[in-house]
């Protein structure tokens, strides 16, 4: 029972973790992309439809990643090349993604999806308590953990990561040092898009293997909140994602128990928890000031 609950928490946390990890890299490079929800839902509809048509969940996941990255390029072109307002453009990406995905997915509504199987390491997955949790989950769960480790290592132990952070902290100085600010930001945005696409693909291929319009249900926004909550640190994103996974699974179990609490109040819990957590984190001004990438959301036009 306990193990089953922890596994469902991992399933709820994985898409949040992946999308937030991508956005963390984007924000570390100094760009605020509010289009996570839109990229995620595009990933979900692509993942579902490609997997449905080819029968292969892996092709679906791959297509979701590619479409997420391509879709984010639209945001990149506007904010980096045309220097548009990042907040407004991110919102535009979300609105466009929600609209386009509804259109693309219309013919897939109600169709049975393709569910990605789980990895089962022989013998190890039968260990008591932790067997299935550590050795018997879906492949993307392992990818999400590897992604967390990879992003931490990249940002804090490689030269490229240092360069990316310097671009996010002071793009004018970075530019003066000859660093190609815009090229780096393009790559970061595409990475973020790929991650959001993968997270969306996960929703449509593992979490609930079917297509429902608007099925990301605010998860992209929660991922954005997680990055703030984590004060731009990968390890804390992991913790935050599992905390939110626990809240959303907890409320589902509470609904199933039939407590005399309105189900709508329980459904609202993840959103209310996001607000409360954001308040608790942001009231500590020093913590947020120290970690926020200093150029976050600032427009950059290189002087030549």
């Amino acid at each position: 029972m306990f193990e089953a609950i922890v596994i469902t928490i991992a399933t709820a946390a994985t898409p949040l973790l992946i999308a937030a990890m991508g956005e963390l890299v984007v924000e570390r490079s100094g760009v605020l992309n509010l289009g996570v929800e839109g990229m995620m839902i595009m990933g979900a509809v692509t993942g579902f439809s490609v997997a449905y048509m080819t029968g292969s969940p892996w092709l679906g996941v791959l297509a979701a990643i590619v479409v997420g990255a391509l879709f984010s390029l639209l945001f990149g072109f506007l904010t980096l090349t045309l220097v548009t307002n990042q907040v407004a453009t991110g919102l535009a990406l979300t609105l466009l993604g929600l609209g386009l995905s509804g259109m693309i997915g219309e013919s897939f509504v109600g169709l049975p999806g393709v569910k990605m199987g789980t990895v089962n390491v022989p013998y190890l997955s039968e260990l008591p308590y932790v067997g299935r949790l550590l050795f018997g989950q879906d492949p993307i769960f392992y990818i999400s953990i590897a992604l967390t480790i990879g992003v931490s290592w990249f940002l804090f132990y490689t030269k490229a990561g240092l360069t990316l952070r310097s671009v996010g902290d002071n793009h004018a100085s970075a530019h003066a040092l000859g660093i190609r600010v815009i090229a780096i930001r393009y790559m970061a945005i595409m990475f973020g898009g790929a991650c959001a696409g993968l997270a969306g693909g996960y929703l449509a291929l593992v979490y609930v293997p079917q297509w429902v319009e608007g099925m990301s249900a605010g998860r992209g926004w929660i991922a954005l909140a997680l990055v703030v909550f984590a004060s731009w640190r990968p390890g804390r994103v992991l913790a935050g994602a599992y905390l939110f996974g626990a809240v959303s699974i907890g409320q589902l179990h509470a609904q199933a128990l039939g407590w005399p609490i309105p189900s709508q109040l329980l459904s609202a819990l993840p959103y209310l928890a996001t607000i409360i957590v954001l308040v608790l984190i942001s009231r500590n001004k020093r913590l947020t000031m120290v970690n926020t990438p200093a150029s976050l959301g600032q427009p950059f036009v290189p002087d030549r």
Partner: protein
Amino acid sequence: MRLELVKRPQQSRAFSALSPFIAFGLTIIAGAILFAALGKNPATTLYYYFVEPLMEVWSLHELAIKAAPLILIAVGLSVCFLSNNWNIGAEGQFVIGAVVGSVLPVMFPDFQFWFVLPLMLIMGMIGGAAYASIPGILKVRFNTNEILTSLMLVYVAQLFLDWLVRGPWRNPAGMNFPETRTFHSYAILPEILPASGRAHWGFVFAIIAAIVLWFVLSKTLKGFEIKVLGQSPRAGRFAGFSAGKMTLFAFAVSGAMAGLAGISEVSGAIGQLRPAISPGYGFTAIIVAFLGRLNPLGIVAAGLVLALTYLGGEAAQISVGLSDKVVRAFQGMILFFVLACDTLIHYQIRFVKSKAATASLAAAQVPNV
């Protein structure tokens, strides 16, 4: 070849005026391509989408019904966006305005006097303003990101409405349908010209709100304060303006407008509360605000255009079998084109040959010198 931006010494007046039109033109072209890709004849589809709804009087009334909430919400949002406060939770404030405004006709159905309607409208505005003040206060007091909190509150508001209409406010005589009792006649916002169509007074409120806010923004000190704090918070501080008070003001105004839109929609167009009372007006209004270049009078025109996308979507669905899902994709495209075209106001765009190409060109030219 690559693209290079050169900052203009001044904003281009020509492009300030032209950019929304260029954006709309580009959207039409993109729309034609989209329709062709969906296997529809682009010309006829565009006709049914953008022209046919304007040919009948009753249809113009429908246009006004859809434009009213969009304009009301967007003029409120313009105050927020101009002062650099990112309220994107207007959809939630719309819902809460509708709920608070509906307290009288739903909970006290026997309370039937002429002043019920004005009270409902005021309560709707207060409800919306109070709900919008939550992210505003959190931003000022705790430095919390208003984008995320205002958006999260949309989901909370929708769930709250869902609970009300399925639970305590469900119509006792409604066969268990998730809806409240229908409003009595004193709680119904009247039609403007009942003889020709359904358009209700919400559209008049929208026009009045746009004119009032246009006056405030362009002719008063408050309007100057809003713009200064938005463009340069530091300069605003030197002028003695308080950014915190401005945040509270902007959220309260935009919330009140969204709340008024909510109660007008419910009282004028629907006549009762249901689980879903808005086809995303609060989000579409963000597009309206930007298409109107954050100018209340521009927003009136932009609101009519976006209302036409809703109406045209319905018309094209009936006439050429276009999916109604196209509407939101279309609206998203408009915002993209608007933002891209706004670049032309501040920058000149030059296409520069890449460095290698320039170098070889220079080398080729040397002998001629």
